[in-house]
């Protein structure tokens, strides 16, 4: 079966016709010159932009344990609609993904769902308790081939444990992805610590609780000669520290969420837990800083931290609300609005931050590849000018806790293709 994607612009550049069969690109020629045979599939690219399929380093699929909020099937459907061809499912499930058995289960369910590649993230410590290392090697050797390990949800705060973890994963080219949050400085914290938290009477989550852990882990990683990845950077101080560390040669990579690229703590004034997230929404200056960081590459990737929650966990007073926001379907338009339209990032940059670098960090051989002959046909076609409104009713996600409710978004995913097979066609799941 041969498919032709006609009249698309890779990285926004000159229009081409792309042809693939058996999941591999067989030709890339000037637009209008591809020869389609009668029983070939043809997709009209309409002059739109084509990029390598997006790779999310940070997603919560909630299965096993909280299938009321999301399942691997529903989450990967949302991912495909968001243009993602691979997602990394975080380990804070129930049971926790701290053994080869659980990660293989998640991996297999992802294949069954078939919407995008699911790469389970293994927990760093048993049960996320922060006491003993989990069997990282077993998870790495399992069918799921885990390379990214994280206790996300909680911080690996014990410096000795973090050191050991950083050292241990060198054996299989793994990486520890740290959720930077000093637990003692953030006990009972509800929102960013600032003038606003004092006015609203909500306990503060100070920036230093994130920055201090990052600074420590930069130095640890350098000391033991390991690479390290920092999840959901959210403050100017964190960006500055990572930038400093990179200048010193530390092998660090960092991610930022779409919501931290665009939303600020001001939303807490509503006391609506829809806007409650960990790390919290920060100040406008922090938002500016993470945009600068993503633009100059200090921040390597956009990672959604898609965190579905059942309705009753958000339909309540702030203190009782769970932390987390949806993000898979709205990541691309947020990047368009905050980075592309203002000219901070071009389409090559988007490909780099949303596909190439995440794939490299996760050591994925078949994602984030150039759009060229011989490469996997794992692509996303996007329309940067399309506008649409967020409507949770029309989302395949089981949860509705999006911070962009009823908001008009700029930029839409039109086609998502996973190894030659379209998973989304004209904005609709196939």
């Amino acid at each position, binding site marked *: 079966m041969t498919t032709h994607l006609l009249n698309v612009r890779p990285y926004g550049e000159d229009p081409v016709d792309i042809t693939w069969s058996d999941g591999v690109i067989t030709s890339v020629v000037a637009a209008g010159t591809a020869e389609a045979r009668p029983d070939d599939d043809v997709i009209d690219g309409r002059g739109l932009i084509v990029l390598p399929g997006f790779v999310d380093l940070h997603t919560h699929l909630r299965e096993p344990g909280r299938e009321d909020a999301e399942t691997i099937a529903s989450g990967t459907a949302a991912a495909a609609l968001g243009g993602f061809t691979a997602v990394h499912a975080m380990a804070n499930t129930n049971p926790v993904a701290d053994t080869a058995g659980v990660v293989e289960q998640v991996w297999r369910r992802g294949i069954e769902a078939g919407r995008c590649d699911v790469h389970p993230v293994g927990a760093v410590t048993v049960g996320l308790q922060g006491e003993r290392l989990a069997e990282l090697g077993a998870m790495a050797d399992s069918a799921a081939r885990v390379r990214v390990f994280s206790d996300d949800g909680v911080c690996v705060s014990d410096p000795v444990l973090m050191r050991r973890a950083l050292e241990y994963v060198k054996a299989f080219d793994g990486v520890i992805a740290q959720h930077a949050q000093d637990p003692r400085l953030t006990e009972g914290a509800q929102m960013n*610590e*600032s*003038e*606003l*938290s*004092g*006015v*609203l*009477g*909500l*306990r*503060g989550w*100070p920036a230093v609780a994130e920055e201090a852990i990052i600074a420590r882990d930069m130095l640890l990683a350098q000391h033991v000669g390991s690479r390290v990845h920092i999840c959901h950077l959210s403050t100017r101080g964190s960006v500055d520290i990572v930038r400093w560390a990179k200048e010193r040669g530390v092998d660090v990579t960092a991610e930022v969420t779409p919501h931290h690229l665009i939303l600020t703590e001001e939303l807490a004034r*509503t*006391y*609506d837990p829809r806007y409650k997230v960990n790390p919290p929404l920060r100040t406008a200056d922090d938002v500016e800083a993470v945009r600068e960081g993503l633009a100059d590459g200090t921040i390597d990737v956009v990672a959604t931290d898609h965190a579905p929650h059942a309705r*009753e966990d958000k*339909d*309540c*007073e*702030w*203190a*009782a609300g769970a932390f987390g926001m949806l993000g898979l379907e709205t990541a691309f338009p947020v990047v368009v609005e905050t980075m592309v339209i203002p000219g901070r990032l071009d389409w090559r940059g988007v490909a780099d931050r949303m596909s190439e670098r995440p794939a490299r960090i996760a050591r994925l051989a078949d994602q984030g590849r150039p759009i060229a002959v011989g490469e996997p046909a794992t692509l996303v076609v996007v329309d940067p000018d399309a506008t649409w409104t967020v409507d949770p009713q029309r989302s395949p996600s089981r949860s509705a806790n999006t911070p962009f409710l009823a908001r008009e978004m700029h930029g839409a995913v039109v086609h998502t293709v996973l190894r030659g097979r379209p998973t989304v066609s004209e904005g609709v799941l196939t």
Partner: protein
Amino acid sequence: MSTHLLSAADLSRDEAIAVLDTAAELARISGRTVKKLPTLRGRTVVNLFFEDSTRTRISFEAAAKRLSADVITFSAKGSSVSKGESLKDTALTLEAMGADAVIVRHGASGAPHRLAHSGWIDGVVVNAGDGTHEHPTQALLDAFTLRHHLSGGEGALDGRRVVIVGDVLHSRVARSNVLLLRTLGADVTLVAPPTLLPVGVESWPCEISYDLDAALPGADAVMMLRVQAERMNAAYFPSTNEYSRRYGLDVRRANLLADEGIVMHPGPMNRGMEITAEVADGPRSVIVEQVTNGVHVRMAVLYRLLGAAEGSGDPAEPALSGSLEEAAS
């Protein structure tokens, strides 16, 4: 007046003075044998108290009853609330019972805000204290008390100096008072150890001081906030002794106030911790009066809020007009 009373910032200067004036008139009425007024007859007022608070709850109950409203009280202990029923479900139950006004005290900051804006209930929401956020009717009764002693019982509090001392970080009373006192023209100084002041307090419309002896001289009033001894365990201060020595109000300090200066406390007091028994029971103390004033102020708040709310009257009834503007014929 806006539809709900969630924060002291909801009141403009004129509105605040109007509430205090109304309370003053109601206070005079309560000197009569018949204390009840028929004003809110047929209205249902619900007290929704998720936190234990006998004093405030009784104050609101009395206020509503004196206006002839039907009062229903939900208190946390022993109800479905304490068994984990959510705020939303409790609210929906109240709505089904037809509450015209819901007076809510809750341990979570912003809970009244959620009740007012979530669409779960239709009635008027009065914040009776939410977490560490606000307690607007406390600020109103404090302003009423101050006005009575410092401004002859009328107008505002322009130029008066009020010192507020204690655990500002965790105090909803402090937040509401800073806002309302500023609205009424008073100058406020907050005194506390640095650990008990919130980040960003420098931007609040008041002065800050760590030194109680320096802040008190000449002040017209000092308001002592309750300080929980358990805060010591979270290292907010080293010991109760050190706290009392540096920030407690004793007779020597009370006498630093202006001649007519008064001592206030929202209650309940930790005698010996933030305030000595001699001062609490002494001549400058108006603490008991604050409680009495609470009923009249809360009557005024209920009257003004429910009067502004949409009612069930028949629009075909003729306007009671005669002389324009005012009470009709």
